[in-house]
């Protein structure tokens, strides 16, 4: 989601032969891009208008039946709404869990800050399967979390193979993305501004609510956009923590593609995910304009 900037040589004149060289240099990457990205994605969009035959067959057609069928089926309406609600919940939980860390990191300095930043990034370099496996061990029925809750005198709730497990696992998995987005947006947060508010007699809570929070809203918006789109399209944690009992968009796409072999329906659901992405992006730019304006 970030674009790199280059220092282009100013006024560099290129001889006509460089065009031929450039084409030769770009040909391999263009080829991979065409075979592995452009062609598959256009084909996927086309597939969503094909007709699914019973038993996994596909008839070439140009019908909106998949789309209308999807929007009339109460199972899928509920699936879509559930996916959006759960993803919003995960995004909010991730924000709550990440904000203090990001604020602390923003204020830290030197080697301590570098060390903590590495700690934040390191889970990103660990496979999602491994981290989900760790959560399965933690949240299992006789697991450590359940034991602690029981020791405090409460009845431990079921935290595996349901939405609770999915939310806890994904919150932790998405935290690094949120923390890095928040930190990127914290640039405007000058400690002097906080100090000014405190010397003028504002309580810590009031300083946070009226000074710190408004200044960090752009970072919050960016982090929420990123986590929402990652949450609604995440598959591994959903599949493993849900244990086949939590049905959301990503698992349904996989099941339709691999188990039921209804590719037109899987393609339609995928396109739907992309439409939700577009909607999230539109909301984000609106919110950003409201904050800045």
């Amino acid at each position, binding site marked *: *989601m970030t674009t*790199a*900037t*280059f220092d*282009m*040589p100013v006024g*560099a004149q*290129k001889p006509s032969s*460089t065009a031929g060289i*450039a084409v030769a*240099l*770009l040909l*391999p*990457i263009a080829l*991979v*891009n065409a*075979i592995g*990205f452009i*062609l*598959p*994605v256009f*084909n*996927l969009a086309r*597939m969503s208008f094909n007709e699914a035959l019973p038993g996994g067959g596909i008839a070439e057609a140009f019908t909106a039946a998949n789309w209308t069928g999807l929007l009339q089926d109460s199972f899928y309406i509920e699936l879509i709404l559930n996916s959006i609600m759960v993803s919003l919940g995960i995004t909010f939980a991730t924000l709550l*869990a990440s904000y*203090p860390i990001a604020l*602390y990191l923003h*204020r830290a300095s030197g080697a301590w800050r570098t060390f903590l*930043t*590495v700690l934040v*990034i*390191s*889970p990103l*370099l*660990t*496979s999602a*399967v*491994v981290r989900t*496996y*760790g*959560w*399965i*061990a*933690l949240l*299992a029925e*006789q*697991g*450590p979390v359940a034991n602690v809750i029981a020791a405090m005198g409460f009845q431990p709730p079921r935290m595996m193979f349901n939405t609770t497990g999915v939310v806890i696992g994904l919150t*932790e998995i998405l935290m690094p993305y949120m923390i890095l987005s928040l930190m990127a947006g914290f640039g405007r947060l000058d400690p002097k501004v906080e100090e000014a508010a405190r010397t003028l007699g504002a309580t*810590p809570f009031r300083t946070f609510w009226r000074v710190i929070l408004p200044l960090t809203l752009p970072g919050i918006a960016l982090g929420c956009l990123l986590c929402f789109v*990652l949450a609604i*399209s995440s*598959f*591994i944690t959903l*599949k*493993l923590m849900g244990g086949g009992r939590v049905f959301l968009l990503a698992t349904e796409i996989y099941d339709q593609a691999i188990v039921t072999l209804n*590719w037109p329906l899987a*393609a339609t659901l*995928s396109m739907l995910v992309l439409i939700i*992405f577009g909607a999230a992006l539109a909301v984000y730019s609106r919110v950003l304009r409201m904050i800045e304006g």
Partner: protein
Amino acid sequence: MEDNPTSWFMRITVTILFLFLLAPVLLVFPISFSGDQILAFPPSSWSLRWYEALLGNNVMMSAFLTSLGLASVVTVLSLIIAIPASYAIVRLKVTGSEFLFNLFTAPLLLPTIVLGLAILIIFASMGLLATFTGLVIGHLVITLPYALRVLSVSLGNLNLACEEAASSLGAKPLAVFGKVTLPMMAPGIVAATALCFLVSFDEVVITLFLTGPRMTTLPVELFHHVESQADPLVASVSVLLILMTLAVVMIVDRTMGLTKAFVK
């Protein structure tokens, strides 16, 4: 910070949240030394039996070798393809280079579940499913954007003066590239190598669509294992994977500094 009356509250909160963030990764270390038959924490006894079980598990070992070979081939190809491409985009400044850069990095914007399905449908008609070639192309789709991005930034930050000096002293363009530009890009190349290797080695979702019983990778095999049973075997694999990642990251850190390579 010291005179801030809320700082102790902040510190405790941050400590708890860091524990939450790191708990699942830290937990696999003690579990991998479990002597129990099933996944439980804390284990009732300690042993190395799950590391022995791993060495004796042919499916896991062959999946590991496939992953290692796949990630190596993908990394080498990524560099061979992305270095010329970044040169064309940044140095030759071809028409529409910004559009091309965005197009070639666009696969990263798609969710892997959508990209995986899209590639599955196309590869099925080309007979590339569950083949090594199919996996290589599928992985290149997502490693090339990283390689192109890191290499373009690295190339863009280089001072043109050295290259200009070399060519004004009579060096041919290819010699300038090979003897001046390429060596100066070394930190970027190291970062791109590490990133491509880790991305390819860890890739699950796209690979899940492209593998079959004939050909499977380690992350996909781990996924199926966790899906079907809960034993400490995955923990021992995880520990080895984490140590491998750590080794790769330390090599990058020695060469160019971790934060430079991954944060910017």
